[in-house]
């Protein structure tokens, strides 16, 4: 297991480095940063001066080394859109997106497991439910989000639909409001943050959740019909022991792999969801940066999201190896 983990992390580092190179190249050649700063009508002298100031007259590997060292010092430049240091902007927004992403993953898994249970019920009701949910899962996140807003805010007034809290930024350390509220013992604050979270997180997690449920239910029914389940029954195991000891673990692998892929899709839907719910996170920042042709910021956020995706998938692989010995021992 240790050997597998070490090898997986080694290959993770290789991929992360490749990602760095890619993002660096895109930020250098994806648009002209000088024009971004100075505008299209700047004089040739000013452009040349800016190029020198930004180090763009240096050879490419010097630029790359410079980029790495600035990255290590968290010197990420200045955002064109807000005219503030990118690092400061990110420090404020990463927890916001992280909180939303974590809850989205949590809801996806919850929906997945609950629905998988419904799938295995043999009733007409579950067939109808399956159809409804399948349609829901086919809808893009923004449609579900808009529908959620219409129903739970406009009609029922149950849930808030804008921002992260009704109180103002948290005083806690993590920047994740629900967690901060709990840590500081401010329960109403945590509840309020949670209420703000529900709609955006659900909007982003419904699709992945239903997909997860299908794979999990398929896996369960396959493993319950498998030869090893039959062996277990023939050895006198009860049906619930067969499910617990043999079914769940064998069904978990495909579901875990799917979750890894779904995290990527979740990230892209979070960008949209953050816009709809005025969630002041990375997604919103990214949209503003794109609008303002702020190449450096876009590159940095892409790097962050990419790194997150790669790391999550490495973790999924390691989790797969824990669940299925064939992965780590072959």
């Amino acid at each position, binding site marked *: 297991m240790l050997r597998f983990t070490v*090898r997986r992390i*080694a*290959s993770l580092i*290789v991929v992360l480095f490749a990602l760095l190179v890619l993002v660096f190249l895109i930020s250098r050649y994806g648009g002209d940063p000088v024009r971004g700063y100075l505008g299209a009508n700047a004089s040739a002298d000013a452009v040349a001066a800016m190029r020198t100031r930004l180090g763009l007259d240096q050879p490419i590997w010097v630029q790359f080394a410079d980029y790495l060292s600035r990255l290590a010092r968290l010197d990420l430049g200045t955002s064109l859109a807000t005219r503030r240091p990118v690092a400061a902007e990110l420090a404020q927004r990463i927890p916001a997106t992280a909180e939303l992403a974590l809850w989205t993953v949590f809801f996806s898994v919850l929906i997945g497991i609950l629905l998988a249970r419904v799938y295995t019920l043999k009733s007409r009701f579950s067939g109808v439910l399956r159809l409804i949910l399948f349609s829901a899962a086919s809808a893009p996140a923004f449609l579900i989000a808009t529908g959620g807003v219409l129903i739970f805010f406009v009609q029922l007034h149950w849930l808030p639909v804008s921002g992260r809290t009704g109180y103002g930024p948290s005083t806690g350390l993590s920047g994740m409001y629900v967690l901060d509220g709990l840590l500081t013992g401010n329960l109403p604050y945590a509840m309020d943050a949670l209420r703000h979270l529900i709609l955006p997180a659900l909007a982003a997690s419904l699709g992945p959740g239903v997909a997860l449920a299908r794979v999990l239910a398929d896996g369960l029914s396959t493993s319950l019909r*498998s*030869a*090893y389940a*039959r*062996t*277990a*029954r*023939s*050895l*006198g*195991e009860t*049906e619930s022991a067969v499910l617990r*000891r*043999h079914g769940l*673990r*064998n069904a978990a692998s495909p579901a875990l792999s799917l979750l890894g892929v779904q995290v990527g899709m979740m990230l892209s839907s979070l960008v949209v969801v953050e816009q709809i719910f005025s969630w002041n996170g990375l997604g919103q920042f990214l949209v503003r940066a794109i609008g303002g042709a702020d190449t450096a910021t876009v590159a940095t956020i892409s790097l962050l999201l990419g790194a997150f995706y790669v790391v999550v998938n490495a973790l999924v692989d390691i989790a797969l190896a824990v*669940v*299925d*010995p*064939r992965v780590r*021992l*072959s």
Partner: protein
Amino acid sequence: MSKPHAGVLEVAGLSIRYTSRTPAVLAVDDVSLTVAPGQCVGLVGESGSGKSTIGAAVQGLLTRETHVEADGTVRVDGVDLDVTAEAGWDGVRGHRVTTVFQDPMSSLDPTMTVGRMLTRVTGSKQESLRWLEAVEIRDPGTVLRAYPHQLSGGMRQRVMIALALARGPALLVADEPTTALDVSVQAQILRLLTRERERLGCGVLFITHDLGVARAMCDEVAVMRHGRLVERGPAATVFGAPAEPYTQRLVASRLTLSTDRQRPIGLPDPTVLTAMRETGAAPDDLEHRWERGDLHWSSFTRERTEVRGGHTLELAGVTKSFRTGGLFGAAHKTVLTGVDLRVARHQSVALVGESGSGKSTILRIVAGLETADAGDVYVDRTQGAGVQVVFQDAGASLTPWRTVGQLLAERLEDLPKKERDQRVRLALERVALDPALAGSRPGQLSGGQRQRVAIARAIVVPPALLLCDEPTSALDVSVACSVLNLLNLLRHELGLSILFVTHDLAAARIIADRVDVISDGTIVEQVPAASMSTDMTSEYGRRLLDAVLA
């Protein structure tokens, strides 16, 4: 609990219907049988005979099925049980009756160590170790920590046997326990089962399609067909002097090392007779001559104008290794080391070896599916249209959405339509398939029919070399018998050169002129098929010979 003179299994008037389809399928029809303590009763039959349904029923594995109805009584170790209801099975299933299943790869949970599975049954690690020793596992401590995929097929089946016997059942159901294993491993497992049965005194219901295995293992056999018992009695009687025509056919289909190679095997078979008549070379009273043992393959041998001599296939110093592992820690596994192999014109060579011996890799290299790392591979393509392969699993090698006619015509694309249709017809007739089947898709055919389609596709344009990869091992005995006869007919009629890969020496002997034994990626000896049993001298070859059940 058990009465002294009662059988550990008493089945009376058992009928089982699957009602999920209309009309309901009668899988088991009024079957009665008894297994006494310490006795081994064989339940013999071909696929679809209902033998596995009986096996599942007496272990209480049908109780959760919703579309099953049953009549009759089943009594296990003195307990009356309903095969369709869960009540009463608690404490019987897994305790009084246990099972060794067919495929030890899929029958053991891949995510669990052997120790965890076994200790669940034995109760303690010491007991588990003791049981692993009892089933002759050499390094029980290591195996206890191993996962199923790290063990060989034979080892996995030993673990399965330990699991089944650890609770000291009164009745052991052995459901094709050696079908997925190599022949030499099969012999070891059968010995182990016999010894443990004698040691523990449990009754055994031995379900198999393999008459040789049934004969070697069982005191009594019951032959099943279409859900009914057609014949039962002491094994020696049923196999020595079968009374029923069906049993006679089954027994005649069985290959041994003394089966006559010069003549068609088994009883006259309408499929093969049809194909023989199509050749135009068949003598008049074909069926009678076959029955009298007066029909020889040589009468189908066509006059050949070309000079004999020369080779269709030559392999010289062929070496192959595979890369395993990922980005880091890659390793090379050598599969073939300096293989020399020749197949002469019109010659048929059987390549015999166990799983992992490299025989399939040779076949894949000759077929062009792999390339050799070093050495020469030469196929004389002037002899016919390249190389064709007939695989073990014909079902998987035929594209499911194409019709049989389309599949066969694939190799005839440059011919005009009329001639194409005629060639397809001819090829189907050669393997005795009704030309009307040209419109069917593979899914609508039986296993034997699919294998014959695969052969027809291979010979629709006669190839220079026909490669066969265990073409009969997935088939029922009588079907395997017709396929072997058909291949032999084609060999004599068309003068095909054949390379036949198998682990079954008896089949190799029938189909081949020469048998090459391969072990660990090297050909260890080459002997004429006719005198195989005396000429084979390599230790490995002898072991394979001993493994063939008499």
